[in-house]
């Protein structure tokens, strides 16, 4: 019984597949039949249509470009740029656009888009503007195609079939290029901020201070620790003052991290003094139950540095006292 059932199942699957294949073939046949002017289509392959299209766009370059710039100004895009700049930029974008249509080589366009973005991002040009102008150009060119082939509807259809995918790909490429460039800039800035946010400073031989300002998230905390431990090694520090006056609050994870940093520094032979704990942070540290024997805390940065100097055997004396 089971075997029979199985066999029937397989057969059913076979039948379904066979049907699918037949359907496909039928569709193929019917298309051939319903298209008696097949030779005409074959002689006008998409690339050929594109060539015709490109020739048209080259011919009407001045006119179309003009039209496009007018549309850009009308829709109030690229307001950060002057009219002349827009015109110059439009010219080069137009030429690259037509070239990309012709060669279908998008690498050059990609490079151009990146270059363009690099230039205009610092001017405050937004993503919607860049996408907007490319879409405008696409529409302007499509309109001109409508105008040109309005008498021959079939031809227009085929031209648009060739034009639209290419145009969409171009719009896509430019938008992606712009966004990528923006993200690169953002990443770079984040990196710069991160670098700036962890200054490990030597104030005296073998004494480092690490002033921390702002919000500490786990990632920044980890980076602080890394920088500090490396700083202890390179500066051969014996005492480190971590000043957290500028930190309003920290969560339990970060507080734990701070305690771990103190312990890790001790393993490198450095004593850590934490200064400027706000009441909220003190509360957090008490809540997580820090062993206060391990934590050396002083009220403010001045007190911390004074204690550090004592630990290092320095004594600050005014000139009057020495006399």
């Amino acid at each position, binding site marked *: 019984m089971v075997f029979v059932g199985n066999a029937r199942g397989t057969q059913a699957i076979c039948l379904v597949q066979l049907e699918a294949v037949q359907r496909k073939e039928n569709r193929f046949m019917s298309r051939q039949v319903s298209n008696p002017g097949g030779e005409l289509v074959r002689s006008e392959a998409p690339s050929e249509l594109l060539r015709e299209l490109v020739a048209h766009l080259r011919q009407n370059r001045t006119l179309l470009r003009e039209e496009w710039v007018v549309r850009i100004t009308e829709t109030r895009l690229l307001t950060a740029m002057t009219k002349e700049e827009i015109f110059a930029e439009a010219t080069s974008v137009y030429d690259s656009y037509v070239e990309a249509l012709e060669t279908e080589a998008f690498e050059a366009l990609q490079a151009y888009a990146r270059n363009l973005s690099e230039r205009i991002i610092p001017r405050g040009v937004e993503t919607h503007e860049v996408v907007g102008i490319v879409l405008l150009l696409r529409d302007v060119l499509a309109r001109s195609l409508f105008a040109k082939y309005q008498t021959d509807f079939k031809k227009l259809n085929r031209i648009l079939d060739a034009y639209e995918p290419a145009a969409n790909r171009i719009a896509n490429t430019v938008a992606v290029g712009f966004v990528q460039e923006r993200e690169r800039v953002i990443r770079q800035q984040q990196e710069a901020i991160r670098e700036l946010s962890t200054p490990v400073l030597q104030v005296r031989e073998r004494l480092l201070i690490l002033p921390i300002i702002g919000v500490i998230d786990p990632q920044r905390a980890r980076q602080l620790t*890394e920088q500090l*431990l490396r700083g*202890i*090694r390179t500066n051969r520090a*014996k005492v480190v003052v971590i000043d957290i006056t500028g930190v309003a609050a920290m969560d339990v994870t970060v507080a734990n991290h701070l305690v*771990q940093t103190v*312990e890790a520094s001790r*393993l*490198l*032979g450095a004593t850590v003094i934490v200064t400027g704990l706000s009441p909220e942070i003190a509360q957090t540290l008490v809540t997580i139950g820090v062993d206060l024997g391990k934590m050396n805390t002083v009220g403010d940065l001045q007190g911390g540095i004074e204690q550090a100097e004592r630990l290092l055997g320095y004594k600050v004396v005014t000139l009057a006292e020495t006399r």
Partner: protein
Amino acid sequence: MEVPILKQGEVLIATFQAALSDADLEHLRRGLVQQVVKFRSRGVIVDVTAMDVMDSFASRTLREIAHMIRLRGAETVIVGIQPEVAFAMVQLGLTLEDVATALDLEEGLAYLIEKFKNID
């Protein structure tokens, strides 16, 4: 790979050359605890600069060495823990409590000499 133990004045110095097996660590412990009395040393420095991984066994052995040597009448200082290793140890809860640590050999020696001065 055995750890050589060098005598430098009143101090014994054991320098790890590479990552050690558990047996090597036990061997080192035995050697140090024996020699510290044999040479009448007052201090021991264990240099772990070459270790880029410190597991719980190694860390516990280091702590035991320090405690045993204290019972044998000398001071121990662990030197040369790498920053990454230090943080990994802390995260694993291997904090070498009540064991003296120093940045490198030079610092360790300075620490011991200071300590001897205080005792004398």
